[in-house]
């Protein structure tokens, strides 16, 4: 019998704190880490079976049009080529996160430049690549194509459910002592996970096994089955190691379906890896955004009104739209509000989730606007934020489950030395460097996703955790080991974690920062199930049972598990679902960023000198992996502030900088002086672990602290990200 929990009310027990093993939260090394540093962790493309063929995908080179023919014969005649596949089941673009069904399929209609429309399969990768380069496609091009979101011909949707209005913002703006009404733009971004999307498909009769690189396997199985037109019971996906995701591997993607079709047709396993360029063009981008932000405040800086309207884009027929304003309804007070979203339909690479969809760009713009409000009101930016923290969700009128924004701001300011910041921009100079400080708030919504897990306590006192959950670098192997070790009183080397296999119980998958808390709760419940079974065997009640170091202690008995179990296994199952606590309270994570930059007075180049992030995300399950997640998020913020920008050609929408040489990610030399502080917090509204998500919080507003620091250093206000040197240079004073 599985232990089931629907999260309908707050958990007040905090069971983990009552346990005796004391490994929860500790900075243990990743259990799978030795395999990773030794090069023995096997990712999708490392599973190549003997006799496998290799497939290389081929792209269409029109923004919109028809594919009328594929010259298969010429390529089939090349040495080693086994098949040319241009099948209507091929995907136009990946599935959106948690779709659970195939995205738009078909190769006849081309909807964006770079759409993958054919696969060449050969005995070797080199032969397949040669064939793919030689494959002639007959494409027509529709001259009326819209590729620019600001093209007046673009269809613009303004969905009602993304619109909300409270009070009278226009009036509040007129009455305000201080107001801001500015437009901010962010460019499209790429997830750019280090492992390109890759799949190996192998059929055994009607059963398909796919080694893939995916974040959310139960959904991916349904999507793949739907795309192929087969029963999902015949599909097994394996992804024990995933080389980064950041949203780009939420949904099934083109190479998986292509590999499966080819493998079926040829009767041999087929491996298909997307090239880096194909990943840039074919996998989700984060939409560019244009954001109009209005802030109205009184003499004391207290906000009376907030307006946040966003313009984003996506392909026709895609339901996803970057939720830019997601945190705006609850971050700051203000009785008069207007929130809206507009989606332009364009023929560009599909837009989807990239790390922290919504807050990553939305909070960044809002926090630059707050800095502008601080500037014109003469109120310190830190103080301005402290004055505007609401005591409940100002839009919904419900309490926060927990809100440590104030503490995050104060702790960060103290630790960073915020009081040493000059309030007058452009006044601190060191040689040819202008130096300044900036700050921003962080916030991200918190979610719980239905999740199941199985834990087996074996007769020899080892716990085996099983779930189709993934670890995309997030630390799942570590935190699930710690939860089970804590609950069952086992040292970490007595816990084995098996993940990334759709034959195992259905977990939440990795995405939206919900993985550790959702799947962790399922493991927690499975362990409670085992504890209950142990109590039955020992004839004690759960409160009097202590488990530690592989022993059960109750009253004056202390017995090793092996003696209690006598060689048999105990199987526990856990199942958690979201419930009423989702609506009863506003659940979110909060934090603060402080950054110091040097801007070169001659070139306008910005160098980050140091940056601090203070975060509050409920119980921290592993200090080490949580800190690493925050470092990663903040570095995405550095990239957003200074470097990252997908550039679309205005004529046909193609991505001009479709590789890692031209799309500039932060490298080691761009990232120095990063520090992370994790605040102590428990949030029983979230789940019985009292933990919330932390994987995305580090990016939500991070870029604003850097852009604000540039302003403090130079007096130049950049509203069009990234703040590349050309944009800064034009505002710098002339050299004397």
């Amino acid at each position, binding site marked *: 019998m599985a232990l089931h929990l629907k999260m309908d009310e707050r958990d007040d027990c905090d069971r983990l704190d009552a346990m005796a093993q004391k490994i929860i939260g500790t900075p243990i090394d*990743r259990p799978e880490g030795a395999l990773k540093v030794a090069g023995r962790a096997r990712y999708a493309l490392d599973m190549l079976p003997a006799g496998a063929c290799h497939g290389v995908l081929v792209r269409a080179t029109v923004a919109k049009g028809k594919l009328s023919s594929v010259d298969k014969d010429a390529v089939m005649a090349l040495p080693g080529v086994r098949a040319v596949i241009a099948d209507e089941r091929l995907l136009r673009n990946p599935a959106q996160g948690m779709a659970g069904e195939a995205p738009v399929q078909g190769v006849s209609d081309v909807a964006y430049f770079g759409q993958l429309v054919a696969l060449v399969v050969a005995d*070797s990768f080199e032969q397949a690549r040669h064939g793919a380069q030689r494959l002639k496609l007959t494409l027509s091009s529709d001259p009326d194509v819209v590729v620019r979101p600001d093209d007046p011909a673009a269809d613009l949707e303004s969905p009602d459910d993304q619109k909300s209005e409270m009070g009278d913002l226009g009036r509040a703006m007129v009455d305000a002592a201080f107001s801001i009404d500015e437009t901010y733009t962010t460019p499209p971004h790429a997830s750019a996970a280090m492992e390109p999307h890759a799949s190996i498909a192998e059929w055994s009769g009607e059963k398909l096994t796919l080694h893939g690189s995916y974040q959310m396997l139960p959904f991916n199985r349904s999507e793949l089955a739907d795309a192929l037109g087969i029963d999902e019971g015949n599909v097994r996906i394996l992804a024990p190691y*995933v080389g*980064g995701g950041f949203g780009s591997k939420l949904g099934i993607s083109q190479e998986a379906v292509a590999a499966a079709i080819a493998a079926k047709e040829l009767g041999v396993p087929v491996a298909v890896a997307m090239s880096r360029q194909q990943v840039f063009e074919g996998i989700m981008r984060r939409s560019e955004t244009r954001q109009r932000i209005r802030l109205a405040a009184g003499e004391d800086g207290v906000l009376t009104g907030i307006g946040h309207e966003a313009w984003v884009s996506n392909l026709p027929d895609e339901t996803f739209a970057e939720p830019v304003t997601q945190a705006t309804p609850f971050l700051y007070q203000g009785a008069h509000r207007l929130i809206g979203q507009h989606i332009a339909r364009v023929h560009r690479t599909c837009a989807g989730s990239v790390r922290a969809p919504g807050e990553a760009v939305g909070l960044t713009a809002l926090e630059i606007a707050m800095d502008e409000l601080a500037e014109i009101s003469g109120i310190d930016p830190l103080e301005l934020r402290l004055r505007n923290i609401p005591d409940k969700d100002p839009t919904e009128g419900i309490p926060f489950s927990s809100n440590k924004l104030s503490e995050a701001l104060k702790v960060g300011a103290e630790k960073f030395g915020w009081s040493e910041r000059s309030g007058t921009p452009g006044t601190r100079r060191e040689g040819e460097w202008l130096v300044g400080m900036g700050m921003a708030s962080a916030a991200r919504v918190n979610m719980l996703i239905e999740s199941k897990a199985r834990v087996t306590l074996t007769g020899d006192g080892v716990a085996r955790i099983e779930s189709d959950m993934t670890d995309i670098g997030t630390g799942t192997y570590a935190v699930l080991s710690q939860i089970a070790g804590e609950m069952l009183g086992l040292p970490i080397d007595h816990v084995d974690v098996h993940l990334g296999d759709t034959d195992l119980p259905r977990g939440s998958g990795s995405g939206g920062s919900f993985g550790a808390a959702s799947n962790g709760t399922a493991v927690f419940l499975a362990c409670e199930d085992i504890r209950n079974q142990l109590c039955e065997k020992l004839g004690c009640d759960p409160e009097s049972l202590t488990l530690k170091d592989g022993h059960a202690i109750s009253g004056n008995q202390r017995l090793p598990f092996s003696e209690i179990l006598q060689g048999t296994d105990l199987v526990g199952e856990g199942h958690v679902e979201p419930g009423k606590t989702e609506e009863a309270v506003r659940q979110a994570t909060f934090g603060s960023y402080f950054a110091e930059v040097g801007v070169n007075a001659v070139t306008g180049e910005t160098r980050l000198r140091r940056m601090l992030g203070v975060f509050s995300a409920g119980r921290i399950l592993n200090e080490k992996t949580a800190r*690493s*997640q925050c470092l990663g998020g903040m570095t*995405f913020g550095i990239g957003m502030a200074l470097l990252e920008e997908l550039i679309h050609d205005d004529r046909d929408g193609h991505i001009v900088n479709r*590789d*890692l040489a031209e799309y500039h990610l932060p490298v080691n030399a761009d990232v120095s002086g990063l520090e992370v502080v994790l605040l102590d917090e428990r949030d029983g509204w979230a789940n019985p672990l009292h933990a919330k998500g932390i994987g995305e919080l580090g990016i939500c507003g991070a870029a604003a602290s850097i852009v604000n620091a540039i302003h403090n250093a130079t007096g130049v206000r950049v509203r069009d990200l990234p703040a590349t040197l050309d944009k800064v240079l034009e505002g710098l004073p002339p050299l004397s």
Partner: protein
Amino acid sequence: MKTELTVNGRRERLDADARTTLLDALRVHLELTGTKKGCDHGQCGACTVLVNGRRINSCLSLACMHEGDEIVTIEGLGEPDRLSDLQQAFLSHDGFQCGFCTPGQICSATAMLSEIEAGWPSHVSDDLDRTPELSSTEISERMSGNICRCSAYPNIVEAIKEAADRRRG
């Protein structure tokens, strides 16, 4: 095309398509899958291996160019239960998250430490004639050919410092 080379101390005879990169020869022909393909264009560093002691992007080199060369891959530096100092330091400092760039980072760092010992200056070295100090700035600069999107950079720098300290005794 036939090529003889030494990989992780073993003599290997390859018979591969002339277009086969060293990276694909290692991964597909020799089944040493620790070396990763992140971009196939020398832009990310995930495929870094040591050739005659020096780090290179194995994706930018054809296998048939390596007749007689000595190649060391991540598998040749240590094993899960017998990690090299750098591998151990990456593990304990969490110098990785997803782990995909990690073999390249560690191969790169292994060679980088030798480059510093040999007195090679970098873009950030103050003095071209003196052996560079192993500062965070030097390490970051010299490791900037290895991209880590998870951004374990601060932890990578700490890991390298610790391993270098151990190496120097």
